């Protein structure tokens, strides 16, 4: 087809409209004088951290093939999650500890059947977590948060029953559910397995936020919301700092924030200050909020949020911490500084300078290469054929029709 879409005036004017809308959106996050002053006051710097006290830093990440295959109206989804724990080491900077914890792998078959869907999902969640769904809901503090933010108490059974369980073909939603559940399930395993040593700071970093999308809804919830909060509970009990680290902070007007940081650092307009953090204020705690967080739940329910920059080559990162843990252990600014210094120390591996290596290691190990996906699909089809299914009826869901 001859491509001339971009030359049509209707198209060009629509694109210009969108650009203006984006500019207005960005402008809405502009800081007023008072907000700018407060923001500048909340920026903190820390030293480039080349040595560390005794530290244990774990990282997890999840991945998979969503879906790997389709057969009739059913789909097979593969979930992989990996975690690794590192300790400080004079020679290597960080050295991995062997916890004997294998990679988390699950193959999830789900048909388009209303009757079977719920059970299939429950079984998958239970396999990934090693706990029944009801147990997770029961042990998690999500229900309390939900009650606080939705204004209504929902019994556990009702929470379990009304949990969202996407359709088999709703691959985007299924992918989010499985990937996040896998990642958090691995975090839960690491929390329960990692050795506890006195005087050792222990951090577990996962590649996400502590956002709870449906916490304000009275009826429905997502399984991973319960699981996320269960991780917070387990981390608190074990004295582990659970860190949700996100490369995409999702905030408009980050340029204004960085300008404020530059003002404080006294650097030029083209320089990117590094080794700083600031806490995203909330009306509930600090009594003021950034314009850019209006209409957004940042920090999320039950969490506090920081923005941090470890190194100029890596963009500003968002860090979510469990609010209860923060309240108990990190109210003192010095404690927060030490936490970010520990994370900075972990971010000095050459492979991902400026980003904590344990998360990168978890990501690298969890990511499936194309050849690994192909091999797993082949293995799955071979097993299915042995079980009596027809090879020709399997479809590679990524190439259903060629368009």
């Amino acid at each position, binding site marked *: 087809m001859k491509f001339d879409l971009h030359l049509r005036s209707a198209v060009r004017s629509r694109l210009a409209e969108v650009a203006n809308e984006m500019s207005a959106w960005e402008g809405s996050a502009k800081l007023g004088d008072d907000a700018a002053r407060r923001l500048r006051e909340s920026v903190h710097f820390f030293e480039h951290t080349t040595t560390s006290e005794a530290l244990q830093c774990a990282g997890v990440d999840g991945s998979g093939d969503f879906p790997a295959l389709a057969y009739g109206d059913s789909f097979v989804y593969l979930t992989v999650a990996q975690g690794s724990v590192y300790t400080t080491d004079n020679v290597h900077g960080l050295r991995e500890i062997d916890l004997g914890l294998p990679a988390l792998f699950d193959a999830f078959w789900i048909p388009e059947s209303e009757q079977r869907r719920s059970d299939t999902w429950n079984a998958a969640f239970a396999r990934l977590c090693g706990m029944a769904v009801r147990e997770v809901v029961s042990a998690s503090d999500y229900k309390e948060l939900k009650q606080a933010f939705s204004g209504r108490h929902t019994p556990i059974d009702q929470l379990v029953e009304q949990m969202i369980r996407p359709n088999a073909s709703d691959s985007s939603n299924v992918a989010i559910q499985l990937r996040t559940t896998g990642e958090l399930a691995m975090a839960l395993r690491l929390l329960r397995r990692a050795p506890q040593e006195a005087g050792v700071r222990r951090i577990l970093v996962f590649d996400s936020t502590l956002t709870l999308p449906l916490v304000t809804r009275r009826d429905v919830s997502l399984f991973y919301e319960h699981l996320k909060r269960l991780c917070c509970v387990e981390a608190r009990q074990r004295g582990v700092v659970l860190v949700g680290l996100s490369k995409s902070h999702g905030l408009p007007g980050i340029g204004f924030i960085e300008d404020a940081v530059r003002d404080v650092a006294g650097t030029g307009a083209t320089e990117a200050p590094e080794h700083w953090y600031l806490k995203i204020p909330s009306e509930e705690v600090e009594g003021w909020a950034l314009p850019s967080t209006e209409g957004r739940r940042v920090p999320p329910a039950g969490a506090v949020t920081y923005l941090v920059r470890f190194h100029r080559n890596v963009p500003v990162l968002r860090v979510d911490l469990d609010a209860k843990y923060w309240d108990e252990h990190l109210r003192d600014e010095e404690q927060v500084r030490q936490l970010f210094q520990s994370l900075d120390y972990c971010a000095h591996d050459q492979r991902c300078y400026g980003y904590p290596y344990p998360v990168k*290691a978890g990501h690298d*190990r969890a990511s499936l290469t194309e050849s690994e996906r192909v091999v797993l699909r082949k293995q799955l089809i071979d097993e299915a054929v042995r079980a009596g299914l027809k090879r020709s009826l399997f479809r590679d869901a990524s190439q259903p029709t060629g368009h």
Partner: protein
Amino acid sequence: MSLATLEALVRALGPRFGVLAESSTSQLTVVARNGDVAIGDLFLLPCRRGPDRVYVFRATEYANILNRTLEMSDVARNKLTMPDSYFAEDLSEEQLVELRGLVLGYAEYVSDRQGWSFNRPRRLPQHLTDVFRVDPDRSESGQVVFELLRTQLGDTGLVIGHLLAGERPLLAVPVRLPVAALSHHIGVFGRTGCGKSNLIMVLIDGVLEHNRAVHAGVTIGPRASVFAIDPHDEFRTWHAAVGGADGVRGIVRAYSDAERTDLVAPFYYLTARDGLEDPLEARVRLSRAEVTPDDLVSILDFSEQQIAFARQLFAEHGERWVGQLFSGAVGGDCEANTEYLPGTISAVERRLGFLTHGNTRLVSRFDPEMGFTYDSLLPDILCALERGRVLVVDTTLLGELEQFLLNTVVARSLFALRRALRLADSADRLRSEILVALGVDEANGRVGQRSLAQALVAHLDRGELPYLDGERVRTPDELPLVHILVEEAPSVLNPARMRFGSIFRDISRQGRKFGIGLGIVSQQVSEIDPGVLTQLNTQITMALGNADERREAVRTASSDIGGFAQELQVLDKGQLLLSSSLRDIALPAQVLDFDDLRGTNAR
């Protein structure tokens, strides 16, 4: 531990170390865990393509690789330029090694023999085969390797060391030199300080043990003899003076009286010194009567005219030719058209100067008319070698030429005797063949080496030269395998020396059929005559001085050791590569330490 099945073998090998990546018949590539790998490490690849097989893989090179991250050079650049950066040590996933190497072969279980049979590498393991490392710290690994290589290692023979896996020996896998190799030719090549002396000491010890086992009826087969020149006089007492193991002396002293009589007497140690400490030691002495022009040509430079003159003189005077030359009673015979220039005569006389009285502690004068009768230990030496003895010859007081002459005379005389034996079909014929072999032809007036021949016939009649079983003539197969070690071999086995014919060239070509093998000990391979090198059945290559010598060693080995070229470069003291036409594959080994074998600890 039964290792009859693939499952049992895999269980014994422990955890998987790597996975086969690319493979071809010339090279395998294995991606493996980040272990402490060394060139020469052994790996096993159990495989079910076809019948159950286990491939044996030897790493010849390896490289550090990263699993999923940046290129190594990027990481190195970053490490250098990023402030205070590090490279975290992961357990195994990220930092891997890529091994390249050769398949030595594969073992297949043969139920008829109830054991694994090793085959040359004509096949390849299947795709993505699991790879197991042979860990020298795990005795089970060694046992597995021994079972797989058993047909190559053999169950009998002279243990010279243990198979090397990387830089460490597998104590469960002894490497043996077949006793039969002693009657073939063996090259021992290694630079100074690489452990050649210890190796020869271990070999001597092995031969003594073998003879003892044959004597006791434990081992079936012929005995073995070794004539070992010892330029440093170390084999007799080894390190006893500094608290280490005693040498052959210590071994012999531990024998019973009967064993000393049957296995050692009349002597085990020959020296040019006059003071002897033990009845089983003897003063080594040859006679001028035993030296032939061919012996001298084998160790000295002569022109064609000089050779012709010497041979003419020997033909005329036989065993007295040297005395005649020194007395000046030689000259042209115009009628016989054998006139030689005075320059030629004096040149030969000059070259034989080391045999003049006062210049040699080895060769006695021979001139019966002047009262210098035949006085030599050679007949006893030959008899001893024919009875399965190890003779260590201290040559510290001998000149280099004397040492070479002793080696040459003994080798040539023994070779002549064995040829005579093969020709003989009766006792009388044997006596006459011995005379003929030593150039004695009374009917035609040829004197030859009459005194030696008569002495040997006398020894034969007394039963000291064990060629007769009653009236039956023994075949060479019934006699001991004789191995003659030629130290500093380039001096006598170089191409220039071979030009006019050398006794060693004959022995290298024909010695095997008479049960006589040469042991060529040299620091260099390239200096040895190519004709001799091609006759080597067994090559023991130790650390060599430079790349040229290593290339030459690879080129001349009787079995293909091209795949070990890299390994030859890193051979440590006491490590060697044994390649032999008697084996399908070359075996790297760590030589036993004689001090450990016979020292205080061993005792």
